[in-house]
């Protein structure tokens, strides 16, 4: 029984076969997610790498951590499941009762106390807890494994609550765990644990993060003592976050952002703001979603989804079937609701990992949680976010702003200054797209007219010149569509491999006059497929930054970079015949 519909998966579905082998049955928590088999596959990989294998910590020790976290979170389903599992692993009831008793100073309870603080009272967790375990003789690998088991427990508790699965066994009695004192953030410089430096070149999960995110987040770099876990996490990110068949990537990043914000996790807020920025969302909108999504102008249904995610993360004891029903009424399908629950759980997992590892942000965060906000209260108030060094995040002022202010003040003639300043540049973009001087001049007039008419909408989030280029690109695309002279802009990028490996002349520019060279390059650029031509124009002719060009085209930065190098390689291939030394190949 659960809140959501289920379907029958084939008998041979891999993860279910593996669960039967491990437990003798398929736990309800996984059956209840049968609408999204890819999610179950991701969870099975995580559980396998973190929990099921005998590693430096025994399975019994790790199951003990999961039981303690479930009990501290008052999660009947998970507590019953792990209690039963420990019984089957051969632990006597006496030993189990001892394990669940409040801190008694033993090594075993030190481990559990560590996990409970991390999961339930993260503000009381810091470097001192790591040092305490080290003092008791735990190695860094073992401490990493406790942190991972705690994060997995938090993940499973959130899924179980979100789905409302009923326990398969009688749950043990809940215990109260003592409160601890909050740890000042200043004492918590991390990362706390040692790690092995791995590079994107020889460690596949890092290559994957580099390719999809443009960087390898520090939270993964801090776990290289257990590389197979990082592999499972990369797999989970691929199967849960990067799929677009149920919820959109934007919706999922919003869940990551708001849940991380309510968990006061500065690191994860910084990372997911950056991810949203890579999806083309403006900095101001990211900040608004993080601080209060109700004021961000999202779709009403998406607001309700985020409300539900927050309730699940912060008030799991209050989460009921009615909360799922609200999402159904808002128009979400069963598998979309399931994915929102799993995304909330994944966020809890990542937040717990970050807190446990003490990972520092990959870049300077713009939003931080002031220390006084980090308290033990469990009430459901949105913490206040503080902007960090607002002056620093601004680069040089846009030289066009003064002129724009005059135009807005009614001085229409001042607009002429903007036409003179940017006309040449905008013409170049249009000409590169359209390839015809008369049409480019015609389009140039359209662009400036549109810019004038919509000047009120220019909010200064990008430079004015970049805003103009965006209008030019859209105008050019419209005209190309009108001529039916455009291939799909959205299709997947195909692989492009250089074929002609002839050595080039030392100074290819010397062989042709400037005029000949220019017309040759123009002709070959115009032969490129439009999507590659656009990135080449923006990056190599207009010299926009990758971030600006990605914003103009609505692409992620990694996708933009991939297209750019393909475009350059295609152009190189087209030019080999003109610039190669005669009779020279790489193998010659």
């Amino acid at each position, binding site marked *: 029984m659960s809140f959501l519909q289920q379907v029958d998966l084939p008998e041979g579905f891999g993860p279910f076969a593996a669960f039967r082998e491990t437990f003798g049955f398929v736990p309800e928590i996984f059956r209840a997610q049968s609408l999204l088999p890819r999610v179950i596959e991701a969870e099975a990989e995580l559980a396998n790498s973190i929990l099921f294998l005998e590693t430096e910590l025994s399975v019994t020790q790790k199951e003990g951590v999961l039981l303690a976290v479930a009990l501290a979170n008052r999660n009947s389903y998970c507590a019953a499941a792990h209690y039963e599992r420990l019984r089957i692993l051969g632990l006597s009831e006496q030993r189990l009762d001892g394990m669940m008793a409040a801190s008694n100073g033993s090594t075993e309870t030190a481990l559990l106390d560590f996990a409970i603080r991390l999961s339930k009272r993260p503000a009381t967790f810091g470097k001192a807890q790591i040092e305490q375990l080290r003092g008791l003789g735990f190695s860094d690998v073992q401490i990493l494994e406790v942190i991972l088991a705690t994060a997995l427990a938090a993940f499973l508790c959130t899924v179980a609550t979100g789905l409302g699965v009923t326990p398969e066994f009688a749950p043990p009695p809940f215990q109260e765990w003592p409160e601890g004192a909050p740890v000042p953030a200043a004492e918590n410089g991390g990362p706390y644990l040692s790690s092995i430096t791995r*590079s994107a070149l020889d460690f596949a999960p890092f290559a994957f993060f580099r390719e999809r995110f443009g960087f390898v987040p520090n939270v993964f770099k801090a776990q290289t003592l257990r590389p197979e876990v990082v592999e499972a996490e990369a797999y989970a990110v691929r199967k849960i976050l990067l799929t677009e068949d149920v919820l959109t990537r934007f919706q999922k990043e919003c869940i990551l952002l708001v849940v991380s914000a309510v968990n006061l996790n500065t690191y994860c807020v910084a990372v997911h703001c950056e991810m949203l920025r890579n999806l083309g969302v403006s900095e101001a909108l990211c900040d608004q979603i993080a601080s209060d999504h109700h004021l961000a102008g999202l779709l009403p249904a998406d607001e309700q989804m985020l409300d539900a995610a927050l309730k699940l993360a912060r008030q799991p004891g209050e989460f009921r079937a009615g909360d799922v029903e609200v999402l159904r009424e808002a128009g979400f399908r069963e598998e979309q609701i399931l994915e929102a629950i799993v995304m909330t759980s994944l966020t809890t997992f990542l937040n717990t990992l970050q807190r446990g590892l003490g990972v520092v942000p990959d870049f300077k965060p713009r939003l931080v949680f002031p220390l006084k906000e980090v308290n033990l209260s469990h009430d459901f108030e949105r913490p206040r976010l503080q902007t960090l060094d607002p002056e620093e995040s601004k680069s040089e002022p846009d030289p066009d702003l003064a002129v724009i202010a005059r135009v807005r003040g009614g001085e229409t003639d001042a*607009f002429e200054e903007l*036409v*003179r300043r940017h006309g040449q540049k905008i013409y170049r973009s249009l000409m590169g797209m359209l390839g015809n001087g008369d049409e480019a001049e015609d389009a140039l*007039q359209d662009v400036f007219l549109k810019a004038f008419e919509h000047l009120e909408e220019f909010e200064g989030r990008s430079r004015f010149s970049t805003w103009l280029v965006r209008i030019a690109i859209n105008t050019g695309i419209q005209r190309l569509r009108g001529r039916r002279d455009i291939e799909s802009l959205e299709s997947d990028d195909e692989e492009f491999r250089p074929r002609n490996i002839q050595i080039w002349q030392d100074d290819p520019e010397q062989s042709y006059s400037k005029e000949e060279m220019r017309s040759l390059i*123009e002709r070959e650029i115009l032969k490129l497929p439009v999507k590659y031509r656009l990135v080449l124009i923006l990056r190599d002719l207009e*010299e926009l930054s990758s971030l600006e060009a990605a914003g103009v085209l609505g692409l992620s930065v990694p996708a933009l970079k991939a297209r750019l190098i393909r475009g350059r390689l295609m152009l*190189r291939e087209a030019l080999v015949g003109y610039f190669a030394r005669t009779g020279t190949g*790489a193998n010659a």
Partner: protein
Amino acid sequence: MISCDDFMRELGSLMDDELANEIRQRLETHLAHCRTCQVIYDSTRKTLKIVTESGSFEYPEPVAEPLVQKIMGKIRSACGSD
């Protein structure tokens, strides 16, 4: 050791100087030993230089006066101030 595939994957970042030192050094080590990647790297860099210096698609001079006036004429009539 890194392969030619690895090299091609990183080529864009290498050209735009967006790599960590450690990775750049490893790519350079590969380049020193791989003739094919050397040729591709060299010719792609030359392509980029030729493109950026070609003046492609540029308007021959600052946008000509008649065109500026045509644009401003349209704008003035759009806001009815002429």
